[in-house]
């Protein structure tokens, strides 16, 4: 509050200088593709003058408030008052982006670089591809120049890749295995014609860590995931049957199999098998 008068003068001077600059650009029509450069230079000049004066008379920066006034004024004058029918085309969008960037640099840079690149990378997976490429490039150089045994490591890598190829899941064998456990798995609550005795609710789960090899394609990773999920489901059902058997049962009714993610950032699959353990009398 001590320097309020000085601050007011600084802002007013900055604003006046900005207006003069804007008038200059308008008068000589200094423009690119019909877009007047005064929209950038007027707020810049206003802010610059205000900051210089404030540093001199107050001893500190007061935040280039005049630049903000100029931004509002020039935008209002150019886009609303002077040209209210301005078409919404790529140049207009670009102009608005540049004006906003000049007025709110931090916010606009954040939107451009963080949100913009974030959206692109999310949908295209481009950064994953770049990191994979860089990883493989560095590894290649490391093997060639540091270890000096590239041929051996290359062979190992090929072997390693081969060993990670997704085996075919034998559906028939899996089904036969589950149904030859001398155990009744029933998703329904109706026991057909059998008498039974309830033992209690049983729940087993299997957790599988997700596959994180960098040198595999997304399709290969998903095939591997499906293979692991099918295998995990069988293991989970076998565990459930064993638990119920050890409690004196020989079947499960109202069986539910659930799949989900668990762990930090969902880095593992969780498979649950839940049901009511029963003892069936044939």
């Amino acid at each position, binding site marked *: 509050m001590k320097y309020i008068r000085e601050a007011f003068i600084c802002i007013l001077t900055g604003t006046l200088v900005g207006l003069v600059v804007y008038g200059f650009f308008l008068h000589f029509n200094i423009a690119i593709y019909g877009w007047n450069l005064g929209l950038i230079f007027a707020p810049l000049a206003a802010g610059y003058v205000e900051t210089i004066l404030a540093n001199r008379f107050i001893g500190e920066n007061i935040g280039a408030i005049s630049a903000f006034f100029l931004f509002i004024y020039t935008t209002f004058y150019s886009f609303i008052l002077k040209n209210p029918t301005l078409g919404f085309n790529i140049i207009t969008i670009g102009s608005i982006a540049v004006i906003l960037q000049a007025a709110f640099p931090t916010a606009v840079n954040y939107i451009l670089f963080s949100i913009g690149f974030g959206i692109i990378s*999310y949908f295209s997976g481009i950064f994953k591809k770049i990191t994979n490429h860089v990883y493989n490039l560095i590894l290649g150089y490391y093997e060639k120049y540091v270890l000096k045994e590239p041929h051996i490591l290359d062979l190992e890598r090929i072997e390693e890749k081969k060993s990670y190829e997704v085996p075919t899941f034998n559906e028939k064998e899996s089904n036969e295995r589950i149904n030859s456990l001398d155990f009744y798995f029933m998703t*329904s*609550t109706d026991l057909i014609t059998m008498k039974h005795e309830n033992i209690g609710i049983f729940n087993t789960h299997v957790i599988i860590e997700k596959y994180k090899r960098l040198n595999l394609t997304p399709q290969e*990773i998903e095939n591997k*995931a499906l293979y692991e*999920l*099918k295998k995990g489901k069988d293991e989970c059902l076998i565990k459930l049957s064993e638990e119920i058997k050890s409690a004196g049962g020989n079947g499960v009714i109202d*069986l*539910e199999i659930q799949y989900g993610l668990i762990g930090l950032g*969902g880095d593992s699959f969780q498979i649950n098998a839940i049901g009511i353990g029963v003892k069936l009398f044939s």
Partner: protein
Amino acid sequence: MILTSANTLANKEIIDYKGLVTGESLIGANIYKDLFSGVRDVVGGRTSRYEEELEKARDIALESMKEKAENLGANAIIGLKISYDNLGGTMGNTILVTAYGTAIKYE
């Protein structure tokens, strides 16, 4: 092959339990599909391409389950359950479709 989510078959007598049958399929990484659905997510509306993919995945899971039931000598599946789970994945769009039920024989 009769499929039902009910516990019994109406007007039919169940004569034998054949076993548990399951089917799974996964839809996931497809950059163009994801990009397209991403645009639709922004502007709103139905993502028909995704719906088709989900239907295809569900059909695969059901076919796999029915094939197993036939191998067991069943002619119906009761207590059928179908579920769709998002399992993250490369683009966060990996969907696991599972179908499972109790294979039985009826007269």
